[in-house]
């Protein structure tokens, strides 16, 4: 129960008494009940405060659910209420289902069902006459020891069968109304156990049926609903690789040495990946943030036979040697997601603490020392809980695979120009600024394909170049009708005595082949021209990744001066600004 920060009940009570420094949103909660809920109230408050709310909790009189919901002047409605939590304790409400077997067999199951559902319906319609607050209702807990015991299990008309069918009907009932949600007690009890949730002594002493641990879990269910209803559901899971997605270290253990698959201990990571895949399938965006060689990670994603998660599942893959917090910022920017929508999961205490320290808005899940608990740790996390699950959610993973989606669109066009036009691309070419500096460095670090010289620079090195005044660093940003693609290109021109030399020209492989390359090149050439340079030189340095730009300069009218074992040196004379074809773009903005 890390949601309570491992605090004991008395410490939670004490923490609530600290002067309230939060300027978060006020949340007025009304609690209706036919039991004692004094234990629940501080636990709920604690969770809501931690979530940034300023809770104000009203508790109805004991067993006054009907009276307080009917009376427009009751304390429940008096100060306006955002959420009404109904503790409808069914062992009290319908003893025939729980304790009074004589009453149970003297009625038909349908009679009992009708009475219970009628009660819920009354509570709902009473509230709706006076308030549009969000309503949460506890449903029916099961009987741990039904009177007919094992006999009941062999039949369909026992106490628990009736309880189950009422719970089923209750869901249908709430669907007829707006903004009503079930607090599913059988679910809670499945998690914590039928013995742990109850506190018999407190029940007989004070009509408080549940243990502290039980109330904690019920409060957590309420928190999940509140989070979802107030738009606090997280959107993106960012995962580490080594000892998280798989066991071992790919850089040291190699493709055949890492642990992932159907036998122990690889099966732990397989189950962990299954949890992540489940999140993907319900609309959570996945990303990788790993200190690793990019190619090593890609090799695992694409070639390891037992991986459940593949390259296609990840909207962003940051496997490099950068600070993970910088990667996190880059992922947020690339996917256009706020830090407060991101969850980071890692086995390293150091990385987790660093993330919490530098990017406090990010939710951090530190995996436990015991690897066997990895899958459960993620499964029990509530960050992605939502009361919604739409068709859009099912498709989100696919939507974020921008490349795949756009390629699909491409196939429907007979000529490339109309395809480009259909993308409604907006291209922005501008000089580097404080916001883009780190990204330029990062692009230089991780761009392997469309990269003419593959020179790797740190942020400080680029800053140094700018300060020296002999370079111009340009950035390329692209968006299209599918969404913001982000800053995906950079160029560095070095100004020498009587020539301008292209030191770096790179673009993310995601936007290659859209006609943006030529425009970007011409833009930086025109910048050099504007600075008085007529002679341009450039270089292609061959790597085993950058074949895509092998002929790029030739195609753009550069002449080869020298070709030395695949490395090519070029020159170009320009005597007037180069003309640009912007007909394929919705907008082409150049502010160099």
């Amino acid at each position, binding site marked *: 129960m890390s949601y309570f920060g491992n605090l004991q*009940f*008395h410490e939670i*009570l*004490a923490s609530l008494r600290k002067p309230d420094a939060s300027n978060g949103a006020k949340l007025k909660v009304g609690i209706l009940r036919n039991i004692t809920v004094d234990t629940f109230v501080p636990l709920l408050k604690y969770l809501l405060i931690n979530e940034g709310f300023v809770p104000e909790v009203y508790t109805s009189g004991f067993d006054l659910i009907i009276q307080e919901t009917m009376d427009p002047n009751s304390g429940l409605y008096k100060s306006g209420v955002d959420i009404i939590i109904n503790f409808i304790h069914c062992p009290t409400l319908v003893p025939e289902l729980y304790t009074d077997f004589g009453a149970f067999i003297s009625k038909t199951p349908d009679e009992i069902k009708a009475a219970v559902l009628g009660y819920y319906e009354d509570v709902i319609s009473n509230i709706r006459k006076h308030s549009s607050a969000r309503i949460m209702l506890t449903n029916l807990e099961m009987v741990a020891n039904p009177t007919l015991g094992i006999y009941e299990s062999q039949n369909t008309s026992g106490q628990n069968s009736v309880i189950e069918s009422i719970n089923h009907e209750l869901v249908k009932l709430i669907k007829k109304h707006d903004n009503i949600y079930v607090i599913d007690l059988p679910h809670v009890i499945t998690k914590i156990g039928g013995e742990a949730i109850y506190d018999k*002594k*407190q029940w*007989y002493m004070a009509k408080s049926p549940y243990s502290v641990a039980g109330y904690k879990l019920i409060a957590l269910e309420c928190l999940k609903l509140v989070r979802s209803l107030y738009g606090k559901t997280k959107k993106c899971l960012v995962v580490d690789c080594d000892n998280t997605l798989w066991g071992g270290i790919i850089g040291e253990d190699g493709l055949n040495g890492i642990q992932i698959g159907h036998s122990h201990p690889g099966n732990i990571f397989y189950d962990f990946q299954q949890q992540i895949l489940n999140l993907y399938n319900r609309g959570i965006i996945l990303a990788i943030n790993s200190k690793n060689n990019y190619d090593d990670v890609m090799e695992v994603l694409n070639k390891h036979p037992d991986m459940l998660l593949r390259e296609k599942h990840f909207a962003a893959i940051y496997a490099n040697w950068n600070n993970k917090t910088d990667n996190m910022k880059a992922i947020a920017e690339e996917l256009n997601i706020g830090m407060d929508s991101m969850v980071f999961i890692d086995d390293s205490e150091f990385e987790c603490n660093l993330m919490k320290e530098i990017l406090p808005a990010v939710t951090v899940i530190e995996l436990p020392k015991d690897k066997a608990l990895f899958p459960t740790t993620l499964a029990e996390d509530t960050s992605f809980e939502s009361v919604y699950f739409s068709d859009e959610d099912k498709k989100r993973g696919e939507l974020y695979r921008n490349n795949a989606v756009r390629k699909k669109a491409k196939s429907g066009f007979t000529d490339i120009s109309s395809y480009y036009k259909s993308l409604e691309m907006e291209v922005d070419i501008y000089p580097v600024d404080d916001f883009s500096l780190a990204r330029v460095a990062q692009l230089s670090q991780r761009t392997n394909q469309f990269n003419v010289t593959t020179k790797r620079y740190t942020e400080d090195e680029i800053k140094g170049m700018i300060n020296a005044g002999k370079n111009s660093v340009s950035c390329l940003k692209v968006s299209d009708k599918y969404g913001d693609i982000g800053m995906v290109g950079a160029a560095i021109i070095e100004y020498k005595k009587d020539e301008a030399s292209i030191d770096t020209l790179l673009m993310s492989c995601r936007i290659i082949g859209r006609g943006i390359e030529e425009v970007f090149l011409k833009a930086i050439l025109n910048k050099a021209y504007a600075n008085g340079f007529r002679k341009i030189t450039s270089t292609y340095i061959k790597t085993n990744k950058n074949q895509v730009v092998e002929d790029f300069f030739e195609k753009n009218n550069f002449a080869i001066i020298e070709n030395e074992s695949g490395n090519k040196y070029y020159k170009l004379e320009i005597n007037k600004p180069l003309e640009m074809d912007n007909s394929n773009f919705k907008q082409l903005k150049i502010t160099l």
Partner: protein
Amino acid sequence: MNEKLRKILSNVFETDIDKINEESSPDTIEKWDSVHHLYMIMAIEEGFNIRLTDEETMQLVNCRMIELILKEKGI
């Protein structure tokens, strides 16, 4: 008096820890009402990882008695 017990009681009853001693009881501690009595039982059970029987619970009428019952349980 057991320091952990004093800490728990001071948290539960919103009372300065210096004011918690063996003589403390519902007569001397303002917040020691029925609700906080429940809180106290839960906090003691959780804090010392013990279960108090129904009968023991009824004997928790002041701090001296609480200490005595805890001592019986080896605390």
